C-alpha cells in the first residue's frame, strides 16, 4: 500500500533566509518529511531558517525531536533557527516538554525574519 506523508511543505527564500511552511499534522508518520525538508534547507547554509507553523494544527514529540535536531545543526552552523505562528495547542506541547525557552519563537513571519 502506498503511504502518503500527509504533510506538504512550502519553501520560500527571502534575502538569504529560507522559510519553510509545513501544512498538516506533524506526527510520527509525517515528521520524516519535515526532517528531510529542514535538512535540505540547512544544507544550503542559510543565515536564518524560519519554520512557519501557521498551518500546523498538531505536533507530537517526533516533531519536537525534529526541531531540536534542527536547532543543534543551526547552532553548529552559527545560523539562526526561528519558529513562528504557533497555535496555542502547538505551543502547549512545547511548554509541556519545557522547550519553549530553547527555541526563538515569534508571532509572525515578519518578526521571525529579524527576531
Amino acid at each position: 500500500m502506498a503511504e502518503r506523508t500527509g504533510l506538504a511543505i512550502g519553501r520560500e527564500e527571502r534575502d538569504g533566509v529560507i522559510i519553510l511552511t509545513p501544512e498538516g499534522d506533524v506526527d510520527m508518520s509525517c515528521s520524516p518529511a519535515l526532517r528531510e525538508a529542514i535538512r535540505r534547507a540547512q544544507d544550503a547554509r542559510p543565515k536564518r531558517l524560519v519554520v512557519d507553523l501557521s498551518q500546523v494544527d498538531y505536533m507530537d514529540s517526533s516533531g519536537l525531536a525534529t526541531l531540536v535536531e534542527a536547532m543543534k545543526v543551526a547552532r553548529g552552523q552559527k545560523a539562526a533557527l526561528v519558529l513562528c505562528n504557533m497555535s496555542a495547542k502547538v505551543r502547549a506541547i512545547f511548554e509541556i516538554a519545557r522547550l519553549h525557552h530553547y527555541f526563538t519563537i515569534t508571532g509572525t513571519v515578519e518578526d521571525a525574519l529579524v527576531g
Partner: protein
Amino acid sequence: MTDGRPHITVEMLSNPVYLSGARQLVSSVAQRLGFDEMACSQIALAVDEALCNVIRHGYDRAVDRPIWLSLWPVEEGKGGLRIVIEDEAKQVDLDAIKGRKLEDVRPGGLGVHIIREVMDEVKYERREGAGMRLTLVKRVPMTAGPKVTPKCERGCDG
C-alpha cells in the same frame, strides 16, 4: 461505570499512518465527555505518544502488528475518560519506563514525560501471556461546566 465492557474498542495496526485516526477518535469522545478543546488536544497527544512508543519500542517499527485502544467514560466527580492501550509487543521492565531529564535537551525520549504530564493517572502493566497494557485516566476539571453523560441527548431513535 468504569469497569466492565469498554464503550469503544478499536483494533488498529501498528502503522503510524493510523495515528491521526486514533487521535481524532479520542479527541471527539473527550469533547463529548465535557473536556475543553485544549484538554481534548492534549489527551489525544498522550494517546499518540503512547501508540508511538508501542510502534517504535514495542514492535521495533513493524507496521502490521495489533494494538487495541479502548475507551470508557469515568463517572465519578465531573466525569472523565479512561483509555486502555494494549499490545502484543515485547514486555518491558516496568521500572525502566520513565521520562528522561528535560534539562538534557536532545531529540527523542519525551513521550513518557508528556503522557505523565498530561494525564491524571498512568499505569503500565504486563499483560498475561504477551504484551503490555497502559491505562490512562483524565478527569474533567471540577471548574468545568455541567457533567456530560454519554447518553443520546435527543432520544436514541431520532
